[in-house]
């Protein structure tokens, strides 16, 4: 199968500190993929390079056969990559429905169509009854759902989820996992999960990449990854609960 996203040897330094060093991986179309690693491993930096927040110092990012490194965030989104924020960023003063409508307008002919699509997405994510509330009134799990709903409304080919499980209780986490499975199955949305929470990644991802000190040290299925000695040493050794 051809890769939807190819990351080829990207690097990024901040004030001389190398956050990501020559990282490469690819994401096949239609799969749920995970990128894990301990804190400070460079996960969010890679994420932000794909999303267009930073341009990589070196390397290339190819999406659907076209280079996207160096594009601005709005151009990356228009190309078909939706993202969520680790620290949620709702449009606090707008209603839940309006939040999602902003995203839906990207590929809708009219605001009416965008609102219809947004209402559907909210139903799907279980936020339907809260659509007319201001986003500022939502609880954290709901805000995380809103992040996902907004990103989905842009109708992405690839959905980037930045620590979307962090701060959720195990049951809420399981609900999210279920939602992503459904999305992947029904719309064929390719998903890249960047997570610290192993439980969710192991349950969801078909392929996992492991980052450590800015380098990809292992790639494979969850079973392969957890048996990799390098991974065990650097990451799982610290957290024995798998």
């Amino acid at each position, binding site marked *: 199968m051809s890769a939807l996203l190819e990351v080829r040897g990207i690097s990024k330094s901040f004030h001389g500190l190398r956050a990501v060093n020559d990282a490469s991986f690819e994401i096949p179309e239609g799969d749920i993929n995970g990128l894990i690693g301990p804190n400070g491993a460079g996960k969010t930096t890679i994420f932000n390079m794909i999303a267009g927040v930073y341009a990589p110092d070196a390397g290339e990012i190819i999406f659907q056969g076209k280079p996207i490194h160096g594009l601005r*965030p709005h151009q990356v989104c228009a190309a078909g990559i*939706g993202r969520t924020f680790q620290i949620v960023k709702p*449009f606090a003063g*707008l209603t839940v429905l309006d939040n999602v409508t*902003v995203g839906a307008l990207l590929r809708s002919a009219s605001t009416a169509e965008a609102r219809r699509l947004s209402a559907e997405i909210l139903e799907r994510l279980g936020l339907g009854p809260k659509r007319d509330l201001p986003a500022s009134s939502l609880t954290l799990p709901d805000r995380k759902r809103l992040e996902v709903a907004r*990103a989905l409304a842009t109708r992405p080919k690839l959905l980037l989820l930045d620590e979307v499980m962090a701060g959720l209780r195990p049951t809420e986490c399981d609900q999210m996992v279920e939602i992503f499975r459904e999305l992947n199955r029904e719309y064929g949305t390719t998903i890249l999960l960047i997570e610290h929470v192993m439980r969710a990644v192991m349950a969801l991802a078909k392929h996992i990449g492991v980052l450590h000190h800015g380098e990809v040290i292992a790639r494979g299925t969850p079973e392969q990854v957890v048996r990799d000695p390098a991974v065990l040493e650097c990451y799982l050794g610290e957290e024995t609960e798998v």
Partner: protein
Amino acid sequence: MSRASISLAILGAVLVALPFIVGNYALSVATLILYFAYTGQAWNVMMGFAGQLSLGHALYVGVGAYAAGALFFHYGIGPWAGLWLAILLCVALGLVIGFLAFRFAISGVYFALLTIAFAEFTRIGFDHLDWTGGPGGMFLRVAQRDTWDLANFRGPPLMYYYAMLFLAAGALALCFFLLRSKAGYYWQAIRENEEAAQALGINSFRWKMLAVAISSAMTAVSGVFFAFYYNNLFPEQIFHISRSIEIILGPVIGGVGTLFGPVLGAAVLTLLSDGITEALGALGWEIPGIKQVFYGVVLLAVVMFLPHGIWPTLARKLRL
């Protein structure tokens, strides 16, 4: 029909009938209210909708007024043509300010400072521009108040009142439409969180520039009206920062980002400040600067007790 549209229809009918109900003094106060409602609405597009704080909107009033005024003064060209020059110049200026700010990521307070700076150096520039009379001002041929000369926008107070009513109603309708359009959604998203807006595919630079263009074009029209209503223009007076503040007080007190806030704010401020000046005058007290003190007190009270402005609370109470 909803309560809101019925109320609006009643208000509209009263305003259309007003010149036949009240005298010339009340009509001039009403014209002033509509002027501030309209200009506040224009400012609200930038700040209330798109979240870009301008503290220099007097710039557009002044440039608009001088552009149309000078064409009339020097060449006898009426305001209907001058209007376009005024809009063109103001939009160009707005886009220059917007480009500098948004391209180089100057935002928030620093953006506000940039808008003040542009208004201030334009004021100083006009002080030294002999073609428009410099600091001594420019005086347009005063209107014959009893004859209608629509081509040159000369006529009785009634004409100015209806012109302003038309503009204020038009601005309200335009903003109503804008807020429900793609631009409205995008502006509010940028206002609430620009980074999240960009992640949803919004080219924030372009949409902020659009807000500036619309706001400056609308304010240019205020300037043209100002020139032909007051007939005299002084840089010191028209570009002064207190003018910019006067423009934003209405929407701030009425409710930033709301449709009816600028209208309500303009009415409350103008009526109360006029009332107080009148009352004090009746007592034989002439206190210079009392208007500014009054504005300060009202602003303080609103910020303390109704931080979102009077309108959101009032609308809830009236179930509109």
